[in-house]
């Protein structure tokens, strides 16, 4: 009894002074206080911009992304575990990341709370839809079928334990989001510099639809195929979006430099693209704001344990518009100087050739390229004899940070998406080619492509496809080389057999011949060479005969095992263990 009495008295005292314990936050707002004012909406969507491609993505920024393909050969054969076949099922995480989807859902679910005039906040609503599409597209590329989550879930939401929905439906939902984004977003001319605009959204929509269209078409009748596949629908969406962008006329293909040998290369190393007609969006850098990029600590100084592959070099046409296998202008590959002459000018604007300016100060050259840095320490060497120049800025500060912009969206892609989608729809007329591929060729002075093509290349990558589609794909590879498109392209085209070939680079002998010019003195013993005398970085690795990519499963990633245990309705992707 006595204790109870004390307890009651104490409780009364405590209740009477509850206010002493009321200590609300002093420097944070809570969800209840978000009113979706214009300022709040702007701040909310700002945080997604970091998801755009970044100069930190690889040593070369976006220009190293093709390391995961047959365009570039990284010194480590296991650089991308999916390609090398060493990928194993993760237990958790591994890219199965839904945080950003939740963030966009919170906005889309609640923005109607706003009391602002919708016209004032439309850009932010558009951005929220754009970003949800962006994050979903990334997940779909990685995992295929997905649950469709369009609201913020709590721990007792049923959706947590739902099934995956066919990627075809997911793709349509993504497209729906993109259509909303396009509706709400302003044109570039009235958008704030750095923010997403309508044109960028159109380009991204064409990319998504082209990806899904090709996937459904080329993976048909494989474990990755889609039942009720409807590639035409997606090709149409892709073509329409690209066409809409082209017809807006707000963007164009432009020359990147004053001199012909910089028309193409000069496009990729600018600080400021704010008035560029071709670079639609970019990440700006500023030393004074402390936001810098480092790619030029590698470019021209060393390499980044990578090099361009022979296959990429070979795919460039000769100046007569014909492939090396048929053109009489091709001089063979004993010497780089031979191999690079009479070729599509984009080749020598993509890789370094002897005499190129590596470094300059206010236009005065201070260092010239001689030979690739094949004898450097692993992380700084060149692996193939073909050293990347696209993206290099000789004027940059090579020892500390630099301000070169990182490209996010480039108009050339829209032209290539359009041409490809039209070709897939069998609607690629000469006029389509003339406003797409041939515009790109005009910039560098290459002969036009015609619908008939006019030659048969015995080394076409896709002999089963039409000559025109082969040439459109070649043009895409050349124009967008080393910008991070190739991995996606190989996957959507179901073309990974191209990476299951032995990877190699330039002929070794030419470097041995110039040993004295080659500093540091090259020790040929240290560089792996195949039987034909070509540099073969993987000669001593399990990837000697090509990456051990397993086409029966590696086209998609594995759902983390713990997720499968937690949600039995979630099924594993083909070929992977579910437990």
């Amino acid at each position: 009894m006595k204790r109870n009495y004390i307890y009651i008295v104490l409780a009364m005292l405590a209740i009477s002074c509850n206010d002493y314990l009321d200590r609300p936050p002093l420097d944070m707002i809570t969800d209840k206080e978000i009113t979706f004012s214009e300022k709040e909406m702007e701040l909310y969507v700002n945080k997604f911009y970091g998801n755009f491609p970044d100069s930190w993505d690889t040593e070369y920024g976006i220009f190293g992304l093709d390391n995961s393909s047959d365009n570039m050969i990284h010194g480590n054969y296991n650089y991308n575990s999916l390609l090398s076949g060493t990928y194993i099922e993760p237990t958790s995480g591994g890219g199965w990341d839904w945080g950003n989807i939740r963030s966009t859902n919170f906005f889309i679910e609640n923005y109607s709370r706003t009391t602002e005039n919708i016209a004032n906040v439309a850009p932010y609503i558009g951005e929220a839809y754009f970003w949800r599409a962006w994050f979903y597209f990334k997940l779909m590329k990685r995992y295929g079928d997905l649950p469709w989550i369009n609201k913020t879930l709590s721990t007792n939401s049923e959706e947590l334990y739902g099934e995956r929905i066919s990627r075809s439906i997911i793709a349509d939902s993504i497209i729906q989001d993109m259509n909303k984004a396009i509706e709400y977003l302003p044109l570039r001319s009235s958008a704030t510099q750095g923010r997403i605009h309508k044109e960028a959204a159109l380009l991204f929509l064409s990319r998504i639809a082209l990806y899904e269209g090709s996937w459904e078409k080329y993976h048909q009748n494989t474990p990755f195929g889609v039942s009720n596949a409807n590639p035409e629908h997606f090709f149409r969406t892709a073509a329409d979006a690209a066409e809409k962008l082209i017809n807006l006329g707000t963007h164009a293909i432009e020359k990147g430099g004053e001199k012909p040998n910089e028309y193409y290369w000069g496009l990729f190393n600018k600080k400021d693209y704010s008035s560029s007609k071709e670079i639609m969006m970019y990440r700006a850098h500023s030393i004074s704001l402390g936001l810098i990029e480092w790619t030029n600590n590698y470019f021209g100084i060393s390499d980044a344990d990578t090099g361009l592959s022979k296959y990429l070099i070979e795919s460039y046409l000769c100046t007569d518009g014909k492939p090396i296998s048929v053109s009489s202008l091709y001089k063979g590959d004993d010497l780089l100087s031979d191999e690079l002459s009479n070729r599509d000018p984009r080749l020598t604007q993509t890789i370094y050739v002897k005499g190129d300016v590596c470094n300059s100060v206010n236009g005065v050259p201070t260092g010239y390229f001689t030979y690739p840095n094949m004898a450097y320490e692993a992380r700084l060497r060149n692996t193939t004899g073909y050293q990347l120049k696209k993206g290099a800025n000789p004027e940059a500060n090579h020892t500390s940070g630099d301000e070169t912009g990182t490209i996010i969206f480039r108009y050339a892609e829209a032209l290539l998406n359009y041409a490809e989608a039209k070709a897939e729809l069998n609607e690629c007329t000469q006029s389509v080619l003339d406003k797409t591929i041939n515009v790109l060729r005009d910039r560098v002075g290459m002969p036009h492509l015609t619908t008939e093509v006019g030659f048969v290349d015995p080394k076409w990558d896709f002999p089963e496809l039409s000559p025109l589609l082969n040439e459109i794909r070649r043009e895409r590879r050349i124009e967008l080389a080393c910008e991070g498109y190739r991995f996606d392209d190989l996957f959507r085209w179901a073309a990974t057999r191209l990476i299951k070939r032995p990877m190699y680079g330039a002929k070794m002998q030419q470097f041995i011949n110039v040993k004295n010019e080659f500093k540091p003195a090259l020790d040929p013993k240290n560089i792996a060479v195949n039987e034909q005398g070509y540099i073969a970085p993987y000669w001593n690795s399990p990837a000697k005969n090509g990456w051990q990519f397993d086409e029966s499963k590696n086209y998609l990633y594995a759902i983390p095992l713990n997720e499968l245990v937690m949600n039995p309705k979630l099924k594993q992707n083909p070929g992977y263990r579910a437990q």
Partner: protein
Amino acid sequence: MKISTLFLFLLIFCLHAENTNSQNVRVTVKHDNIELQTVLNEIEKQTDYLFVYDKYVNVNRKVSLNLKKRPLKEALEQLFEGTDVNYSLDGTYIVLSHKENKEKGRENIVLITQQGKRITGTVKDANGEPIIGANVVEKGTTNGIITDIDGKFSLNIKPNATLKISYIGYASLEIKTNNAISYIITLQEDTKILDEVVVVGYGTQKKVNLTGAVSQVGNKFIENRTMRNIGQALEGQIPNLNITTASGEPGTGSTFNIRGTTSLSGGDPLIIIDGISGGDLNTINPNDVESITVLKDAASCAIYGARAAYGVILVTTKTGSKNSKIRITYSGTVSDNLRTRIPDQVNSLEFAEAYNIASKNSGQAPMFTDEHIARIKAYINDPEHTPSNLPNPSNPNYWSYATLDNDNVDWIRTFFKPSYFSQKHDINVNGGNENSNFYIGAGIFDQGGLLKYANDKYKRFNIISNVHFEPYKWLNGDLKISFMKDDKNTISNAYDGDIGSWMHLATTRFPNWSLKDPNGHWASTSHMYKLINGGRGITQGNIFSMTGILQAIPIEGWKINMDYSFKRNDFQSKQHAKPVIWEYTVDEHPVMTTQFDSYFTGINTTNYYSLNSYTSYEKNINGNYFSALIGYQQEYTKGHNVSASRRELVSQDLPSISVGVGDQNTGEDLSHWADQGIFMRLNYNYKEKYLIEFNGRYDGSSKFPKGHRWGYFPSVSIGYNIAKENYWPWKNEISNLKLRGSWGKLGNQNVANYLYLATVGIGTKYGYIINGELPNTLGTPGLISPNLTWETSKTLDFGFDISLLNNKLQGSFDWYNRATTGMFGPADPVPAIIGTSLPQQNNANLSTKGFEISVTWRDQIGKDLHYSVGLVLSDYNSKITKYNNPNNLIDNYYVGRKINEIWGYETAGIIQTDDDLAKMPDQSILYGKWQKGDIMYKDLNGDGKITDGKRVLGDTGDYKVIGNSTPRFAFGITASGEWKGFDLNIFLQGIAKRDYAVPGGNNAGTLFWGFVGGWGTNLYKTTMDFWTEDNTNAYLPRPYNSSEVSKNQQVQTRYLQNAAYMRLKNLQLGYTIPHSIVNKISLQRIRLYISGENLFTITGLNKNFDPETLSGWGGGMGKSYPITKSLAFGLNIDF
């Protein structure tokens, strides 16, 4: 505030009601026609007053008096009214004087104590040394004195009075005086610690009456050692007080834990320094500490309720003592501190050749060409005349750093020097009279650093003043003021952050990388310019605290206490990153880097306010002892953090925000929390034989939402001192055997603020430029825990205390089970589709069981050799008893999981033959390709392949628990002896069992593996024993320079480390110069000593690691700032 106001009123009311000054002393005298002297005697008996009078006062005068409980004053008035005697009160004396003498002044009056006689004496210890400052008091009176420098005293006493002689550390002695006038009194050292008083929550208790698990150490452990901080002093002294010090960086403090794993969300002991909670033990001066008490079981902690779920450390600082003359003591030490274990790196040639082997194994071109190796050889043979580097072929005016270098550098020894110097000086003054006493202590500690070029250092200054005053018999008070200032000065953290840590940096420099370029300038890859010229990082702490205490004692046994504390903690950080020369070009032009040109300043202030008011009453009736305590506490803490940084300083000599012109960042954080509690304690014992104690606290915290704030935390403990029973047969052999048991429930509120609110952070300077600016951002609200409330810990404790063999052997044992329930565990696993981190819930239980033993033997051999040996031993082990992981995923907690268990594979060995390759299980889950020199794992379930199954309990394939990293059986052994002024102390500390899994496959493990797959690899003498065709009997497997390396570096039995150790923490030899010599130079005591810390270590651990800093920080295992062993010389002087 209502409660506090109420208590304030109560207190003041009480003070008025029971005012007990001399006016209220009452006497009862009933005599007719009797000598005045008899009446005076009577009054003396009834009061504490003594009469003194001169010879002119006629005490034989006959008087009559009839008073019943009347004021003393009335009695005096009646006795002396109309006489020629004046009376006056003087302290405890009533002075009677003849009126005629009054004008002559008091000095002329020869005062004679009533029937007094004068005695003299000397107080000595068992060795015959005089005891200075011993209290000699006439029993039953306040008539007393303290002994002088020769142990002598003289005192006027009544005939046949009893003298009580006492001195700290000695058993009190009572002697009855006889006709003798001179006494030699020998005090025996007090081996009966049973009379020791132990500090407990809101009071003290006799140790013999304790029923909870409480350990206390006095300042003996701390004085006379070369202590950086309390953590170092306490290590190994108290069983199950676990102390870790993460690194040897100057100014690094220790972290404390009581009885092992507390909660999954963490939980530290509550630290209370002189009544102020939440203090930092690392910043107080060990020299000012009187005692440290550790409350371990719930019953002892319950009075502190919600903040004490995982034990309490009570620190009491020194005070002055009553009636002692002012004493000044000085103690000082100087020490040299040497790094303990430093990995031995290989030279650049050994490195290059080994590295090429691994590259070849990985299918890569060798990194070091023959030409390169030739240059490395040339450099090793003739460093004077061989350039350490070549110009960069692509950029010939620059050196080829990190590529073609051919230097030969031992990086760890380049960054770190062998030793540093440190010193500590303390001086304190204490003294007191009848009504007040004081202690003032001041100390300075100056620690150097091991960084060779950075001149890193730490300084701490402490001052403390404790004043106690007793204006009235019924009222006393304390004023405690302390101030601490520390100052850490090292290189700017802009650079430190850039390089991780210097150990990490040292492990990521290849031996062939240049330290200096061929022209003699520092190489950019050495980062040496940062160490030397990179600007300073200065962090300063100021802690000011003040406590006022009032204690009223209205009647005997009833105490009313009230204290109010204020503490202000200021922490300032200034980080100046200077642009420095990054490198020199080949033609010797400096290249600057401006990347770090910035200045940062931050001020973090915390204000703490605490109010305690409590009242207690105790009474002993015929052996029935009762005591009760009830009180109220409230605490409020408010934190304020302001910071600013700016780039591009116009002048690097005047680093400040004002001289910057570049981008500016500012920030502010505000936080606060409060708690309130009402507590009570009831004690009862019968003749100290049967003991029982109840505690309870009703606590509220601002960290929880309304409706979930309050919790009630009760506890009970009982004791039975069986040796006090009359029938106890072994009274002499076992003088004390107390069985104890306790149970209690406590709350833990150790969670972040506002978990019940979905807060949305505002970010600034987001890393994407919009419209030329770095934009601001708004976060996404997460999931909240609306019902979050207290986590509770319930502890059951059984123990006993024993004293054997005339108290020479003392022992104490406790077993406990601490169940932590409703833990803020990581939430139930939910599919990742939820897209956010899950809110914390009160959803998990944990049980920690353990025991602690302490044993002390104290004795003497012959007359001169005193010695003692002590052992403490403790252990704990925790496991999950409830966790919502229905599938028992082993990557999460599951029911039955032991905390810190290590999962891994059993190693079968190294693949040596083609036969092995053919017969070994399929290991493709780990890697696609296996060859000789790789690791073969054991196929435990015989399915022909190595797997980890579903990674759920019961289906883990060949994956199993192979060890546990919990430190088990922590022990401390102390031995000390004294002989004719010499003293020797030995202290060993260690962990008897602990496993440690080496991290694999990334640069965290390079100090163990050497090869970690490329970047981050470095090679040491210990890592060279790797498998090659020529070294098939190797310890380490075939090395790789790619991620393939991880297939051999799975957590496995072969490379599991035994991290048990025993370390000689302290060895000290001192000599106290004989008093007779010291006395001649007017000093009381001089003691000189030499002392060594960490002098040797026994461990089975890989030689590159120190067992105390295994986990490392800033980049991986063992990558800690090296800890040190020290050699010190010290001096103690009492003036």
